């Protein structure tokens, strides 16, 4: 699973927010994407999942079974290819319970057609089992009810993405709003899946200690371009990174 962007640019009015010659995600297992404020990280994530239309450039996904151009796809089609993104801000379905929200995400779209109205029962045992496994792994206040706090909503958002079994998961600031121990169990779960070869992950984070701890490879984005890439230790000791973060 390799996601490749080439000559990718996004400009608002005349202001260029992203300008990337070439970058590849998903080649190394668990990758990090870091950069100072306004570096264009969120815009890049939006571009990769086709929520934002690029000004120019191409995005392609090598699924192993052939290369797919993402540019002409709509955002739901990108998701169906197996490229899923968690949300930085709290997003959710307010009238779905935790379980229903996960069931929704786990249900393949072809099973949600008109005929499903007259189906005997709603969800297969397989889906129920997957949902139960995820729900019980985390301390939700009411496992049969709704996500209560901001933290639970954020956690649910990540679990919803995981249950779709993505091939490449983009995590946009997963720690923001989550308690420390939950963050760690989420990241451990993610690392397990990566090690098992089920998926590849890109984490966008402000919390650099987390990046240093979990990532195999780190991309450094500043002023819309990838300025440095490498192993966490290389990035940590890189002069450009320190300079761009602190103005040294």
């Amino acid at each position, binding site marked *: 699973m390799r996601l490749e962007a080439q000559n990718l640019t996004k400009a608002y009015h005349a202001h260029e927010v992203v300008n990337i010659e070439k970058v590849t995600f998903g080649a190394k297992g668990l990758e990090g994407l870091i950069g100072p404020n306004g570096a264009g990280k969120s815009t890049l994530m939006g571009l990769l999942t086709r929520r934002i239309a690029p000004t120019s450039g191409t995005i392609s996904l090598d699924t192993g079974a052939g290369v797919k151009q993402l540019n002409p796809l709509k955002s739901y089609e990108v998701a169906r290819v197996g490229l899923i993104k968690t949300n930085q801000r709290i*997003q959710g379905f307010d009238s779905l319970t935790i379980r229903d929200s996960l*069931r*929704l995400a786990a249900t393949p779209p072809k099973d949600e057609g008109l005929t499903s109205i007259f189906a005997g029962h*709603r*969800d297969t045992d397989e889906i129920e089992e997957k949902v139960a496994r995820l729900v019980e792994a985390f301390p939700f206040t009411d496992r049969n009810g709704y996500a209560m706090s901001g933290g639970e909503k954020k956690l649910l958002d990540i679990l919803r993405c995981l249950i779709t079994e993505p091939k490449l998961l983009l995590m946009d600031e997963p720690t923001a709003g989550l308690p420390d121990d939950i963050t760690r169990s989420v990241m451990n779960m993610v690392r397990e899946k990566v090690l098992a070869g089920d998926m590849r992950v890109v984490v966008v984070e402000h919390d650099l200690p987390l990046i240093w701890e979990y990532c195999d490879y780190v991309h450094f984005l500043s002023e819309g371009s990838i300025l440095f890439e490498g192993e966490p230790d290389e990035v940590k000791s890189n002069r450009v990174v320190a300079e761009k973060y602190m103005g040294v």
Partner: protein
Amino acid sequence: MDYLIFSFSLMLVYIGLAQLLHIQFGLAGIPNFGVVGFWGIGLYGTGVLYVVFGVALLPAILIASALSAIIGYLLALLVLQRSGQAILAATLALSAIIATLVVSEKDLTGGVQGLGTIKFPFGDMANRNFVFMIFILVVVLALVWVSARLRDSRMGRQLVAIRDNEELAASLGKNTAATKRWVFAITCGGMGILGGMSAPLHQFLVPYQLAPSITFAVWIALVLGGKGHNLGAIVGTFVTFGLFDILIETYAPVPAEQAILLPNFKLFCYGVLLVVIIMFRPIGLLGTDGPKVRQPAAKGAET
């Protein structure tokens, strides 16, 4: 007696419309302010096919409602992915277009002179109006049943998700635009069927019947009963139409000189009810209901 049957039949039609609006707005979040337009396509479509072209009533209703569904689909293609306010304005505009066309296309619709007469089906059976009321009742009950099934189904869950957060649903791989389009088209077709069935009730069609107040009456009934509850449409219609149009109009001893003001008093009360409900109980009288499906067995019960 005939008048009561007429009133009840009409009330059933309103319940059906509110039920369809519950699917459109309550489940899928599409604010259709053109209810009377789609109902009107069914009503006048049936009338024109029956009177001008001599088509039998039931095929006429089906053709007219298919037309209503097609127009619903086309409108959905144009505006359904726009903001709620744009959808609202576009559907309202469509209903105004239908009403205007009915007046201007005199050759087909009879214009302001009206179009008639549309007779009840079932040959010369006695109590045809009563039998027809039962027929409408069956259709409306079927609608309520389908709507309950929808609420409990995978598709209904997807609709709710789209209403809550369409972008998020799309990011999970749901083709939200297509789903909304089909649901809208089919429910607009349903409004067309109810319109077609109203044709023999009214017998004689005049453009005045396409006034936007029908749209608002249906909306008020739904919001009052509970837009997110499967029985909200029924309860809301009983409270509004049942109370004012049937009970008060039939039985209340109103002096003749005040009788002309009665419909205005009714609409005034509708307005007050609507304001009070949205201010103090926005979920409606019945509130919201979730899917009625089996919850997973408690852990330990299986092992």
